[in-house]
C-alpha cells in the first residue's frame, strides 16, 4: 500500500459513506420534487415571486450537502480510515462541490423538461418565466451568457458549500446547526461584501456615476456606461469569490490533514 493518491482507496471511502449518501440522495430527491411541485404551482398561479423564492430554496440542498458527513458522529473512525488526507479531502470536496450540485442540476433540468412536455415547451416552468428573468438582466446591462457571469454565478453558489464543508469538519458539537448557520452566514456575508464592492466601484467610477446622475448623458450612452460599471463590479466579485472558494478548499484539505480526535 503506497502513499500515492489511490482511486481504489477513494472508492473505499465512498463505500464507507455510501449508506449515508444514499439516504441523503433520497432526501434530496424528495426536496427537489417538492420544489418542482411548488414551481408548478407558481407556473399555474403565474407568480414570479414564488418562482424566484423556489429558485433560491433550490440551492439549499446543495449548500447543505456537506451535512451528510455529520450523520456519522465518528471522528475517531474518520481519522482512522486508512487513506491519505488528500484522498479523504478529495472525496469530501468532490461529493460536496461537484457531485451534489450536478445531481441537483440534472434532476431539476429533467423535471423542467418534463414540465415542458406537460405545458408545451414555451409554457413549461422555465419556458414561461425565463424570458422575464432574462429581460430583467438585459435591462440592467448584464449578459447572462457571458463567461464571466456564468463563472461568477457558479463560484457564488459553490462558496457557501465549501464554507459549510469546512465548518462541519471543524465543529465538534452541534455540527448540523453550525453547518446551517455557515450557509446562511456565507450568503449574508456575500450580500454585505457585494454591497461594499458596489460602494468601492462607485467611488472608482465616480465620474461615470456622476454623469449618469446629471442626466447630461445621451440616452444611447446610458447602457454603455451601466454595462461598464456592472462589468467592473462583476469582475471584482468573481475574483473575490474565486479567491474565497480556493482558500476554503485549501483550508479544508489542511483541516483533514491536521484533524485530531
Amino acid at each position, binding site marked *: *500500500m*503506497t*502513499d500515492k493518491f*489511490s482511486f481504489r*482507496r477513494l472508492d*473505499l471511502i465512498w*463505500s*464507507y459513506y*455510501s*449508506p*449515508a449518501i444514499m439516504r441523503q440522495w433520497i432526501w434530496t430527491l424528495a426536496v427537489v420534487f417538492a420544489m418542482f411541485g411548488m414551481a408548478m404551482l407558481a407556473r399555474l398561479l403565474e407568480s414570479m415571486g414564488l418562482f424566484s423564492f423556489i429558485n433560491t430554496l433550490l440551492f439549499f440542498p446543495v449548500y447543505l450537502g456537506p451535512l451528510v458527513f455529520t*450523520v*456519522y*458522529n*465518528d471522528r*475517531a*473512525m474518520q*481519522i*482512522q*480510515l*486508512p*487513506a*491519505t*488526507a488528500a484522498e479523504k479531502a478529495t472525496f469530501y470536496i468532490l461529493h460536496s462541490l461537484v457531485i451534489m450540485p450536478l445531481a441537483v442540476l440534472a434532476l431539476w433540468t429533467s423535471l423542467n423538461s418534463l414540465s415542458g412536455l406537460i405545458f408545451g415547451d414555451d409554457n413549461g416552468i422555465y419556458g414561461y418565466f425565463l424570458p422575464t428573468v432574462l429581460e430583467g438582466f438585459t435591462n440592467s446591462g448584464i449578459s447572462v451568457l457571458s463567461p464571466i457571469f456564468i463563472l461568477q454565478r457558479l463560484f457564488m453558489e459553490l462558496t457557501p458549500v465549501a464554507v459549510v464543508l469546512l465548518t462541519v469538519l471543524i465543529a465538534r458539537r452541534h455540527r448540523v446547526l453550525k453547518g446551517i448557520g455557515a450557509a446562511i452566514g456565507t450568503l449574508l456575508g456575500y450580500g454585505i461584501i457585494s454591497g461594499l464592492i458596489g460602494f468601492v466601484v462607485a467611488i472608482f467610477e465616480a465620474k461615470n456615476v456622476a454623469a449618469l446622475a446629471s442626466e447630461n448623458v445621451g440616452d444611447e450612452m446610458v447602457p454603455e456606461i451601466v454595462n461598464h460599471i456592472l462589468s467592473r463590479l462583476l469582475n471584482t466579485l468573481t475574483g473575490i469569490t474565486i479567491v474565497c472558494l480556493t482558500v476554503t478548499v485549501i483550508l479544508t484539505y489542511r483541516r483533514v*490533514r*491536521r484533524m*485530531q*480526535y
Partner: protein
Amino acid sequence: MYSLVNLTYDYRRGARAVNDITAEIGPGLHLLLGENGAGKTTLLHLLSGLLFPTEGSCAYNGTELSLRRPHTLRDIFFMPDDFECAFSTISRMARCHGQFYPNFNYELMYANLADFGLTGNERIRTMSLGMRRKAYISYALALRTPVLLLDEPANGMDIDAKKILRRVLTRSIGDDSTVIISTHNVYDLGSLFENVMIMHAGRLRLSMPVWQVLERVAFVTSPSPVPGALYQEPDRGRFMAIIPNTDCIDTDIDYRLLYSAAMSPAGDALVAYITTTDQDHRNDR
C-alpha cells in the same frame, strides 16, 4: 513495534496529559492501568494517530504516526470507550468499513458475534450498551489488525459476557499482534495479559512483561503482617503483600495490588526494585 521517545501531549487548556514517555511496546497482550486522568486514553489516542504529540515522537514500525500513512493506519485499530457505530447493523459496517483492512475475516466476526449470542443483523440503535460493546468488539477483533487498542472493552458487559470476551480475545489475537487494553476491571481478563503498563500523572511508571514482574516479586497473602514486604495492605483480616522473589516462588500476579503499590508512597521504591536488572539483584545479594 511501537517506539515512543519523550512522548508528551498537552491539552490546549495547558494540562499535560502524557509526560515524557520513552518506551518500546512490542507484540503481546498489554494491560494498561492508571488512575482516572492518568493519561491512559490520551496515550491510546497518540498510539492510534488520533492525536499528534506536543513533543517527542510516537512511531510504529519506524513510521511516525502523526504522518497518518495509509499502510500504518490499516495496521492499527482503536476502539474508544464511547465508540459509536455509524451503520445500522454490524454486518453493514463490515461490508462498508471492513474492506479497508486486508486481514478482515467475516467468519471470525460471525463466530465472535455468535459467541455473544448475536447475529450481526440486530439494529444497533435498539441495542443496550453491553450488547453494543459485544458487537463492536466482535467486529474490532475480526479486523485482525496487527495492533488493536481497546479502551474499557468490557464496559457495560455482564459477567457471562466478560467470560466470553476472554474466549473471543484468545481466539482472535495472533501471536504477532499487539493488543493494549485500558481497563479498571483487571479481573475480567486477568490471566490473559502478558505485559503490564501502569501510568501515573501522565508518566509511564511501569511497563514490562508479567513474567519479569513475577521473577522479581511474589504476591502473597498472610494472616499477619509480612516482614520485609515491599508493600502490603490489610484486606478482610488478612495481609496482601508484595515481597522480593528471592526464592523463586511461583505466584500469580495480583494487578490490583500491584497497581495500589505503584500508586502508594512506596511506589517509587517498588518500581525501582521491579525494574532493576537481574545482574543488579545478584550484585545486591
